């Protein structure tokens, strides 16, 4: 049962005061919960996301265990091939209209350095035609192991993504 007896102790002025206080607070909450508007992208801009995860090649090549090496191992662990877990770092570069705007070498994730190297970068670009070139190196050699080059149209307000399909070993351009 609701008890409104407490209202008897309130002066009329205080009711008016409460109304004023609540009106002010409500206006403050209503305004700040949706205003001022935040504009983070101009109408003639689009977004390019360069993001991929890729494991570099093994830091040390696999080798076949000799019979002596196999004999030293417990019976359930006598795999013929011995491969180190560690991976090489991966280098990724991207050119925009002939100018290199991204160059980074990412170490493999994990305490044993056996995870993927990962990249995630966001660029705001002027809408319109651009030429993009990406290169990825996951081995020891000086040359890049995977490359792609493409003319793209950045749509205003849209997101374009450059990713890498590890199974196929190729870059993909989404939202082009």
């Amino acid at each position: 049962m609701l008890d409104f007896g407490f209202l008897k102790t309130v002066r009329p002025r205080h009711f008016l005061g409460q109304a004023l206080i609540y009106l002010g607070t409500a206006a403050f909450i209503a305004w700040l919960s949706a205003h001022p508007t935040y504009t983070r992208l101009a109408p003639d801009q689009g977004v390019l996301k360069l993001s991929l995860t890729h494991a570099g090649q093994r830091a040390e090549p696999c080798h076949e265990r000799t019979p002596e090496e196999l004999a030293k191992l417990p019976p359930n662990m006598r795999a013929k091939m011995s491969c180190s877990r560690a991976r090489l770092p991966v280098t990724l570069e991207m050119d925009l209209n002939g100018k290199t705007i991204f160059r980074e070498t990412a170490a493999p994730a994990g305490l044993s350095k056996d995870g993927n190297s990962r990249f995630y970068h966001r660029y705001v670009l002027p809408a319109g035609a651009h030429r993009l070139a990406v290169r990825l190196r996951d081995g020891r050699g000086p040359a890049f192991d995977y490359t792609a080059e493409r003319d793209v149209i950045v749509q205003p307000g849209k997101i374009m993504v450059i990713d890498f399909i590890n199974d196929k070993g190729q870059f993909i351009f989404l939202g082009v």
Partner: protein
Amino acid sequence: MFKPLQSLLRPIFLRLESGVDWLVGPGANPLYHLGALTFFFFWIVAATGLYLFIPYETSVATVYQSVEKITHEQWYFSGVMRSLHRYGSDAMVVTTMVHLTREFAFDRFSGARWFAWITGVPLLAFLFTSGITGYWLVWDMLAQYLAVGSLEWVDWFGIFGESTARNFLFRGFLTDRFFTLLIFIHIFVPLFLLIVMFVHIIRISRPGVNPPKLLAWGTFLMLLALSFVFPATSHGPADLGVEPAVLNLDWFYMFLYPVFDNWGPAKLWALVAVVAVALFVMPWLQFKKRPAAAEVHLDQCNGCTRCTLDCPFGAVVMINRTDGRPFAREAKVDPDICTACGICVGSCPTSTPFRSAAQLATGIDLPGLPLVALKEKVVAAMDRLNGGPATVIVFGCEHGVDAASLEGEGVASVTVPCTGMIPPPFVDFILSDGGADGVLLTGCRPGDCFHRLGPRWTDARMTGAREPALRDRVPRERVRTAWASPDQPNKLKAEMAAFRADLAALEASAVAPPKKEAAHA
């Protein structure tokens, strides 16, 4: 160290409180019940959230539509529930942030209060995480912006094998499991928030977790009206192929996102870390000497429990008797929690000045101002009274209007850490001994007491509503309480003038107590 900023903030709060007092009355002043209001808003948000959970769908294909149905199809109920959920959450941020600033301004975060302060820091993290994850659930363009931004921020640490923001990289990347996970997060983080809220107040005796009814109804109706007038709505549906460009941020929760857009993750983490560490260590940066904690004198303690019941910080507990005297319990002070307010001294039935100096002892005493010294101060004040009509002894505290500022012809003052320290027998002592014509007790405003409960217990003791009560023989018309904040010296002077006028009228009607000459010496 923080004095310049506190000196800036304190007058603002005091004036604001005075103004709101005048407008709504002290009983319904929200500034005195910020913690309780935060609890109240939490319950509103929890209740509406439970309801919203029922029609909410967690499939990525239907989640947005389900929120739209909630908002528009049954706007008069479900839509209002959604709006209450949002505005209640916003109100929580408002009360929390004002509460934090106010406690800082009034220097109520160090010493024995360190625990409440530092438990408030993770509370902030839980509060903001709860709010942000709630906005994700709508899965509109704003949710997309928050989800991607939050995970890009978290990914900076590189603690996950994969980049978590890649889950939102493009259309088709997001699966239904995300919203199932998200709803669990949005339920469990607020549960942790509630637990930490209770931990936050665990060291406080009689914490205010329920606002006064008038305030509760008023704020609830305010949120309800707001929900009808400005119902919460969504942005357009999320589309991972489109960049959220123009957003109506809820700035209560999202003020850091534009900072993230401009600064990037590393600088924002640095800012958050610096603020968090600063908040954590603030209680120990005060370099103030803590006053000595209250001490129990077992030879005077009969285990009556009044000090335990009255201590505002739960610093006095009752334990089994250790000295073999024929009482079941004895009081024990936890010096880490004790603020040395002296309220326990005022509550002790043995705190009486009607003894010779050699016998003057109490069951619980303040080393900084023992009962003997208090009596000496009272006697000295009575001696300072230089005659005149309607003489008054004023008891004041260290945090309200300086009682000494009232001193003058016919008025003498005694200042104690908290007015709640004054045992009622001292008032009896002054009046029955003819030491003064009246006693005025002043201190912080009830909602603003530095030691939380001083005015409340003093009023209750003087009116006889709480033990130890002022004895019946003391004429009540000669005792008055007048609470005022430090910025209200004129109000107190006016109260004093009115009190003395009343006392003078009593004298004139010849009901004044007979005066004794130096009988108190």
